[in-house]
């Protein structure tokens, strides 16, 4: 196999890895926010269900969760799951990361001083306005460093999709290494993950800087 063919195959894997990454971020952040509402709910049933969900998501391996999501439709309903690979990966990653993000949102929301809510109430803001305009922007600033940590972990975690034989970066690299007895794909993969994370960290730092205009 020529080097350029190898790079072609690897770059198609890169695109797929980035696909997993972006879909997971776009879906799991809002889901995590809603899960955090459930976690903080006054309804004890809802709160406990969410607590169990978060603890299972954090307490079991992501790889195992991916497998279960993937094989479930087949085991439960005998459905054909051949085309289900990508959706299963996105669902698995999303529900896992939403659990982590939910705990981060919760800690941020709970750290807000009650005076902010009281000032907003005195000025007549509705509950929704108070959350969207007053609380959430400040929460985002507070939790951004923790979000950055998770996002960087996610970049590396995308490689777990190899467990469902999804042709992302790591899966492709492993196959080429086995077939061609060359180590180069691993080097390329390492550089890819490193550069990807470097960019992600720079973007997150940019956001943090943008929000540093106030304390």
């Amino acid at each position, binding site marked *: 196999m020529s080097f350029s063919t190898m790079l072609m195959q690897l770059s198609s894997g890169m695109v797929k890895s980035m696909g997993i990454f972006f879909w997971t971020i776009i879906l799991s952040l809002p889901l995590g926010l809603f899960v955090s509402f459930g976690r903080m709910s006054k309804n004890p049933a809802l709160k406990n269900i969410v607590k169990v969900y978060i603890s299972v998501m954090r307490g079991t391996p992501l790889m195992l969760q991916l497998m279960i999501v993937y094989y479930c439709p087949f085991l439960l309903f005998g459905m054909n799951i051949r085309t289900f690979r990508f959706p299963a990966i996105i669902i698995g990653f999303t529900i896992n990361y939403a659990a982590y993000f939910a705990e981060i949102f919760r800690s941020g929301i709970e750290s807000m*001083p009650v*005076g*902010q809510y*009281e*000032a*907003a*109430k*005195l*000025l*007549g*803001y509705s509950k929704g*306005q108070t959350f969207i*305009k*007053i609380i959430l*922007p*400040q929460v985002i*600033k507070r939790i951004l460093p923790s979000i950055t940590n998770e996002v960087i972990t996610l970049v590396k975690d995308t490689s777990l999709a190899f467990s469902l034989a999804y042709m992302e970066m790591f899966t492709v690299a492993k196959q080429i290494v086995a077939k061609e007895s060359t180590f180069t794909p691993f080097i390329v993969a390492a550089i890819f993950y490193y550069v990807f994370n470097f960019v992600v960290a720079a973007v997150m730092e940019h956001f943090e800087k943008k929000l540093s*205009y*106030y*304390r």
Partner: protein
Amino acid sequence: MKILEMNHIHKSFGELEVIKDISLSVAEGEILSIIGPSGSGKSTILRCATMLETINGGEIIYMGEKAAYTDNNGNVIYAKGDKAKKINSNFGLVFQNFNLFPHYSVMKNITDAPIHVQKRDKTEVFNQARELLEKMGLLDKADYYPCQLSGGQQQRVSIARALCMNPKILFFDEPTSALDPELTLEILKVIRDLAKEHMTMVIVTHEMNFAREVSNRIIFMEKGVIVEETTPDKMFNSDNERTKAFLGKYHNMG
């Protein structure tokens, strides 16, 4: 005309009864000061008046409209929906620790609620905000963020923010206790100026000379009850042993 009437207010936190059957009223243009040792329930009565706490008994009436009352079974019923909104637009509260929105500029802190809650005309709101900032001596700080201001400046912004809602009555909960003595004077001057314009105010304060000078009436509270309620001069020449003891302590503290 009475702006606020509070009748037979009771408030407990769990077992602890903090407000024990307090009644007070404030007429238009009147300035009422509330003094008393710490823990006597001064903040709690303001928080009840501004709906930050729910009362356990009694009634709260703004401009003749019942914000809360106690029914025959002893349940407290609060006004809801649009009626509550209308009632709540009557009052503003200045907090001890300002509670400005740190992510909003001074201007946005002042104008956001008038524009997005009261749905008033933007130009009109900005003009009023600029007037208020000018009065507070902060016109040049309109684009600053709260963290770039001194405590005294922040408190003046929070007063401007409350005033821009055009409240009928403004409550102050120890507006100067988080401030250094020099900064305290800034705030007292602002309140004095408001008094000259006959703004209706209820002020909880430890600044005894200020209370004496600016108020029409003073309430001395202790342990959840009103010990004495009278004019400043009578209060400071009171025969009441508890009043004398409290004011004496302040005198000695200088």
